[in-house]
């Protein structure tokens, strides 16, 4: 118990030595995610149920604690926010109904707005490739999407190409995308959104 208290003190000290505790980060995260992060009492149900927590550098419960402490740089630069796949197990089990999946999405957006490079670069690239694919044809098309992803991530051959080839051999990957009729509409929606 005593050790735990000591650790807390150290954290607060380091924070105050840098400057004042940045509570604005907590407010910002609260506003953007719409989740009441102050309610978290660290029961760890979220981390216990999280399928990707073993691979995260900061566990979900710690993410909330660190937001409360105002550790913006550490949180937005973590790999945890990119490992979350939003399976919503945490949110379903949280006794205070904090949806961490929602929070993680908000944090990803904040990280992108701040220009903080994603620690899991490839996951971000995959999101981008997906959006581009929808932008082109109205529907997601795996071959062109994965091609773009492979070229951008420079992950040639290794992990991403092989499953694609296997799926193609199973007849599951049509090479040409199916373009829909209302593509003008889609283009317009994209243009409107980027203008804003």
């Amino acid at each position: 118990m005593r050790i735990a208290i000591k650790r807390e003190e150290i954290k607060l000290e380091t924070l105050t030595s840098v400057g004042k505790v940045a509570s604005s980060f907590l407010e910002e995260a609260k506003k953007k995610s719409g989740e009441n992060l102050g309610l978290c009492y660290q029961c760890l149900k979220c981390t216990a149920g999280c399928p990707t927590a073993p691979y995260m550098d900061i566990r979900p419960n710690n993410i909330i604690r660190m937001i409360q402490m105002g550790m913006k740089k550490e949180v937005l630069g973590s790999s945890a926010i990119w490992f979350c796949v939003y399976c919503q197990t945490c949110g379903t089990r949280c006794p205070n109904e904090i949806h961490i999946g929602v929070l993680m999405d908000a944090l990803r957006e904040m990280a992108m707005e701040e220009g903080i490079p994603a620690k899991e670069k490839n996951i971000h690239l995959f999101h981008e490739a997906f959006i581009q694919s929808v932008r082109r044809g109205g529907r997601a098309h795996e071959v062109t999407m994965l091609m773009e992803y492979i070229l951008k991530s420079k992950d040639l051959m290794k992990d991403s190409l092989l499953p694609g080839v296997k799926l193609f051999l199973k007849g599951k990957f049509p090479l040409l995308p199916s373009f829909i009729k209302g593509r003008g509409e889609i283009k317009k929606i994209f243009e409107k959104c980027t203008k804003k």
Partner: protein
Amino acid sequence: MRYACLRVGRRYAFLELVMDYLYFPGCTLYTKAKNFDQTARNCSLLLGFELKELKNWTCCGATFPLATDNIMALLPPSRILATAREEGTVLTTLCAVCFNVIKRTNRLIQGDGEKRDKINNFIEKNYQGDLQILHYLEILKQDIGFPQLREKVKKPLEGLLAAPYYGCMLLRPFKEMGFDDKEKPTLFEEFLEALGAKAIEFPYKIECCGSFQSVGSPDVATECAYKILGSAIQNGAEAMVSTCPMCTFNIDHKQSDIKQKHLDFKPIPVFYFTQLLGIAMGLDYRTLGFEQNAVDPLPLLSEKGFL
């Protein structure tokens, strides 16, 4: 009265169609999960309804936007909903991810007037959120009924130990999806039992498969899939049954990777639930797209005498 013609077993059958359901397939059902799409369409004809494909549908966006100010990601599902409303009042999907995104967007449009106006302004339509979104399994349960389905089964899947895998998207977030119980759902088990199979209970049935991490960090997804499959096998499953193309990719196609990592792992076939429905309804197994399953299910099926 409308009829459809379909090859059942060795003969062609004329089937009376009672109902139409507006159907949103989603991108993967045209590519990666063609067998899912095709079997669902054929089975629906046998059950007396037709899946009428929505015109000019687009990608649903594949994730429901979570940050409160993200309107852009709400637009594709909203556009789908608005065009669907012009054609009917009920929309059905097969893919669990599409179902999740579309149902949640519909709820949001229903409940949030401010966002609804914003969205309508963007997509230049006037949609008020008055569509009913149903998953194919829900149609089977509510509109057909599992006891009636049991009567229509021609070849009961007796002796098949199948593990129903729900994944995340059908169930969560619990309050918005309202599909089944959040920790102990039973709808899928009831479905399998109506087909005559034995549903295996295993603790990982609602766990996440690792989702899109299979592209960015494949090891993570492989581990997730290993846990799920291992838990099912340990509880006696001979096959997995899935409702989602994404889950199926992770638990079916990843089995070769799992085998390289975990030498004691024995691959088991993964079915879409419509494939099992197809066998039970007496469809020719060659029309059920088993050649597209990564782990070949035919040895198991012939061992059980279902072919």
